[in-house]
């Protein structure tokens, strides 16, 4: 009997401290699988951010640096510019990337920094107890939108892939999900393409993974993946937004 599925080498043995059903660790495992497959473990430098993602470094067997909230793309820029031979990745949540880190996200993408940003979009601030995120859906109840998100005071949820795709510095941009096995397989493929874009020196790569936060959403894990499948995907369409290697310009269902 041969092991056909197990823990990848780049992933540490430490049991995850995330909530039951959380998508973060699925994404960690997929990242590690891709890093193993590409054979780049010792070249990788991860940038941990702030949120539930603050724990990311504990789960990987390669060098890591902890960044201030929102600043991971700037930190990654500093690392990659001095060590272009290393593979630099960030792991960020929706508050970290699209709220406090919006400028760093935009400008590192615009400059075409040769880094890979793994963006976990679960439409909530998990670590701090369930506050509204830039990607929180209209009407969604959170601890800072207790009556449901009202566009009058808070605007509409931010669609990061749609925002970034116009920037010339972006080489690869895809939105996937980890709520079901199909999504998990697509996420793994997207992560591999993103890392390959970095290895080929093509510019900025970002994979937005729509992910479940059962605790933040006040649901069981099974309820959460079902809600993601219906409500989140309706607002955040999955698909390839940009790949400069592709022959045809990419369009995603509007």
């Amino acid at each position, binding site marked *: 009997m041969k092991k056909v599925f197990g823990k990848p080498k780049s992933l540490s043995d430490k049991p995850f401290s995330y909530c039951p059903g959380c998508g973060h660790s699925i994404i960690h495992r997929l990242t590690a699988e891709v890093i193993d497959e590409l054979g780049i*473990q*010792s*070249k*990788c*430098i991860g*940038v*941990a951010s702030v949120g539930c993602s*603050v724990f990311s*470094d504990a789960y*990987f*067997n*390669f*060098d*890591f*640096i*902890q*960044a*201030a909230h929102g*600043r991971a793309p*700037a*930190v*990654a*820029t*500093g*690392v990659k*510019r*001095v*060590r272009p*031979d*290393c593979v630099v990745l960030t792991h960020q949540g929706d508050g970290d990337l699209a709220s406090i880190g919006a*400028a*760093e996200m*935009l*400008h590192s993408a615009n400059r075409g920094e040769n880094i890979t940003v793994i963006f976990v979009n679960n439409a909530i601030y998990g670590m701090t107890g369930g506050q509204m995120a830039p990607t929180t859906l209209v009407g969604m109840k959170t601890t800072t939108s207790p009556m449901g998100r009202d566009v009058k005071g808070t605007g509409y949820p931010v669609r990061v892939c749609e925002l970034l795709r116009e920037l010339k510095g972006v080489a690869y941009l895809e939105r996937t999900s980890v709520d079901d096995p199909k999504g998990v397989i697509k996420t793994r493929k997207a992560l591999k393409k993103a890392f390959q874009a970095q290895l080929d020196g093509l510019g900025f790569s970002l994979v937005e993974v729509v992910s479940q936060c059962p605790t933040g959403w006040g649901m069981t894990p099974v309820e959460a993946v079902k809600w993601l499948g219906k409500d989140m995907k309706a607002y955040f369409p999955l698909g390839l937004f940009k790949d400069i290697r592709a022959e045809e310009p990419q369009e995603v269902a509007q």
Partner: protein
Amino acid sequence: MAEERRLMKGNEAIAEAAIRAGCRFYAGYPITPQNELTEYMSLKMSEAGGVFVQAESEVAAINMVYGASSTGARVMTSSSGPGISLKQEGISYLCGAELPAFYANIVRGGPGLGNIAPAQSDYFQSVKGGGHGDYRVIVLAPSTGQELVDLTRLGFDLSDKYSNPAMILGDGILGQMMEPVTLPEPVTFDMKTKDDWRLGDSAGRSRHMITSVHLAPGTLEKHNIDLLKKYRKIEEKEVRYEAVGVEDADVVIVAYGTAARIAKSAVAMAKAAGGPKLGLIRPITLWPFPTKFIAEVAADGSKDFLVVEMSLGQMREDVLLSVLGKAKVSLLGRTGGGIPEEEEILEAAKKARASKEAIEVFPEGN
């Protein structure tokens, strides 16, 4: 490139000195009165084979410096007061993570948007923290073009020696003036000297983690006490100051940077005129502060102190602490871009000596 003599603007002298000290990463953002530093780097850093980034903000710049430092390179940023305010979180992270980095604050009038004239009102920001948490930054105070060069090199060396940020606290005059300087021979900095902690190439060793977060109970306290032990070592070994005519003085002026340069002229004028009997203590390290030396000078109670600074008395508080109640500490303060003149200093010194209590002198009509 060998040692050479050049007429240089202060801002550019810092940049050139940094490159010659082996700095190979600079991230910055435009802000008056330090723009020539950023502009010089935009051309010369790439010529030197290093990396220049005009970041999207001062916040992004300090975080780029944090990331670049983790790879073992010598790294730098620069700004003026409002921009250094933005960098405070990043500076706290650098100290917490024990990363070396060098930066320059070319101080302008504040608070708020203030003006673009020179000031010394970022003393608290530099020496007392500015950012959050228990930490210190090594603060160097040049007062001439040559010191801009020499203290830049010293700043990089001390920063690496103690794995802690170091900064130059300059001002708009120092940044803008042109003086002849001797530039030292360049050094090549070997990143491999930081192999025991720098990131990259983790094959064959346990992985390295650069962080300032310590959540397990007791671990952050232990870490902070380790930082304190480091700071005590720096206080013991790295104090630098200049003393002029202190022994025979009735009034000892304490001043740094541009204010000290003007005070030096006042001391010389007083000497030529046969009085008053003035001396000068010029701290070159503002942290660590020359507390011990000032205490020694104050100990016999015979001297008065006059702090001359371009602020509302920020350094004066440290002089007050240092004299241990043994002497009167008066203040001649100029603020918001005002610059003291020699006559003003002489007048204030006479008044301070004659007064029973310490005095505070601000410009006429205020």
